[in-house]
């Protein structure tokens, strides 16, 4: 099988870009990425993008506008949406096209503007993510839907509010190292700080929630020989798994053993690696409960062991399995439709050796897991320094 690499990874700092439209953000990302990557228009023959970056106004033809903006004539181009799983799915679709000889160098890009409270954001998002007749009348919103899953996880696996809080504490530790994280200058937090912050929906306090932000980024997926040309150390796409076992929180099936179990197994099998081979993991943390679930679902911890693992400091800077080395969606920022790109960029940069102050000493294999919906659509990618 032909080797595929990520040769470049760029992201604009997550902020509140109130004066910018989502298309302004796409332009900022392209300018920044192209300046860093030093590629020419004729060298790019693929363009994949998520929808237009604003939850209210999905622009399903954004790939066309970006083609126009870039002046390219790609063989592969598409606007894709799998929520937070979109970004790894873009890398996978690009990798498939490259392996089939249909493309050589593909830009995968996303921008997001998380709506501000007070604009009807929660209501619009609820109608997008919930069954409008079966679920929405009961007053759920994103946090409450996660709350249902977290409450059951905590009861089944003996996890306490303090254990959730400890995940948020770790994310902040990483953000303090990352100059572009939104909470970089906010100082450390303690478990007690999290538990003292206001209750949003049980079991989540304010500091257990991700931080609504605007932003976006892009990665350059290439044939391996081009990866070597464009990067000192390209990131090889060693394994990928994807699984979509449910579409609503009230669907039948296991809420705790999520689609991450099978997506992870597929990725590990393709990479011929095990959890013990992974040097760092980026695990989608819309709320503090999900990295604990994913540590167990992906086989890093036995069921019921994740809380103890996190308490030991294992996922912190200097720990045995650094997790969310960029500060996570909780302390780096959750950029709406671009959220999963932050994990991907952070993971790729570790392998590319350009993670700056967050660079871990040994980064030979990094696992990235993101999902869309309320843990519905799952993608696992393993990047490594070797094919």
């Amino acid at each position: 099988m032909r080797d595929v690499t990520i040769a470049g990874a760029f992201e604009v700092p997550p902020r509140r870009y109130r004066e910018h439209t989502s298309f302004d953000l796409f332009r900022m990302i392209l300018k920044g990425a192209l300046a860093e990557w030093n590629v020419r228009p004729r060298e790019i023959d693929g363009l994949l993008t998520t929808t237009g970056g604003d939850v209210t106004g999905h622009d399903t033809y954004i790939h066309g506008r970006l083609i126009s903006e870039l002046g390219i004539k790609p063989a592969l181009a598409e606007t894709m949406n799998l929520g937070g799983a979109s970004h790894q799915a873009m890398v996978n679709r690009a990798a498939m096209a490259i392996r089939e000889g249909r493309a050589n160098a593909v830009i995968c890009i996303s921008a997001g503007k998380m709506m501000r409270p007070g604009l009807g954001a929660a209501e619009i998002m609820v109608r997008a993510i919930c069954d409008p007749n079966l679920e929405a009348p009961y007053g759920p919103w994103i946090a409450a839907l996660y709350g249902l899953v977290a409450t059951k996880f905590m009861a089944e696996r003996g996890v306490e509010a303090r254990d959730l809080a400890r995940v948020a504490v770790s994310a902040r530790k990483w953000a303090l190292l990352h100059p572009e994280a939104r909470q970089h200058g906010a100082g450390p937090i303690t478990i007690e700080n999290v538990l003292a912050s206001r209750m949003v929906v049980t079991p989540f306090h304010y500091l257990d929630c991700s931080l609504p932000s605007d932003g976006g980024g892009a990665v350059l997926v290439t044939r391996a020989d081009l990866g070597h040309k464009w990067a000192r150390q390209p990131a090889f796409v060693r394994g990928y798994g994807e699984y979509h076992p449910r579409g609503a929180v009230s669907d039948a099936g296991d809420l705790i053993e999520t689609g991450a179990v099978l997506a992870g197994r597929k990725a590990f099998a393709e990479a011929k690696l095990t959890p013990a081979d992974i040097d760092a993991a980026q695990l989608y943390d819309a709320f503090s409960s999900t990295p604990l679930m994913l540590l167990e679902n992906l086989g890093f911890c036995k069921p019921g062991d994740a809380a103890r693992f996190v308490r030991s400091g294992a996922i912190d800077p200097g720990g045995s399995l650094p997790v969310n080395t960029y500060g996570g969606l909780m302390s780096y920022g959750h950029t709406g439709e671009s959220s999963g790109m932050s994990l991907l960029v952070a993971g790729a940069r570790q392998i590319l050796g350009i993670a700056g102050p967050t660079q871990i000493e040994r980064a030979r294999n990094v696992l990235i897991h993101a999902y869309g919906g309320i843990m519905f659509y799952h993608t696992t990618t393993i990047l490594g320094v070797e094919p």
Partner: protein
Amino acid sequence: MNQAAAAPSASLPVPDIDDVNRPYFAGTAVGELRICHCPRCDALFRFAHACCPNCWFQNPDFVVSSGRGEVETFTVVHQAPYESFTNKIPYVIALIQLSEGVRMMSNIVGCDPDSVQIGMPVKVTFEKRGAVHLPMFIPDSRV
């Protein structure tokens, strides 16, 4: 989804009646919680489906649930998602496991939100909202 992207509404959301869910809400209007049933494979499902999600039989029908079950999981909402729920907080959203083995989402009402627990026995009640009767659950003291 025909109300998606509309302006934020001040009243509580009301389900839209369509051809698939009409028998379900016809049931709640007469005090019955109906669950979707496949006459071919005998599987049971929450709410309403156009075809059986187990065997894709084209004409699932409905059976009447006992209306009893237990709380599988829940969350107490302290921050209202939008204006129409601000008078409701704190309120409880739960996933209910009906005694027939079907999971559904609902509210737990008629008790202190902090008293709700996983495994708590509950029974159905109905709240009129617009022209629709919404199934909700109260603690089941019979158990």
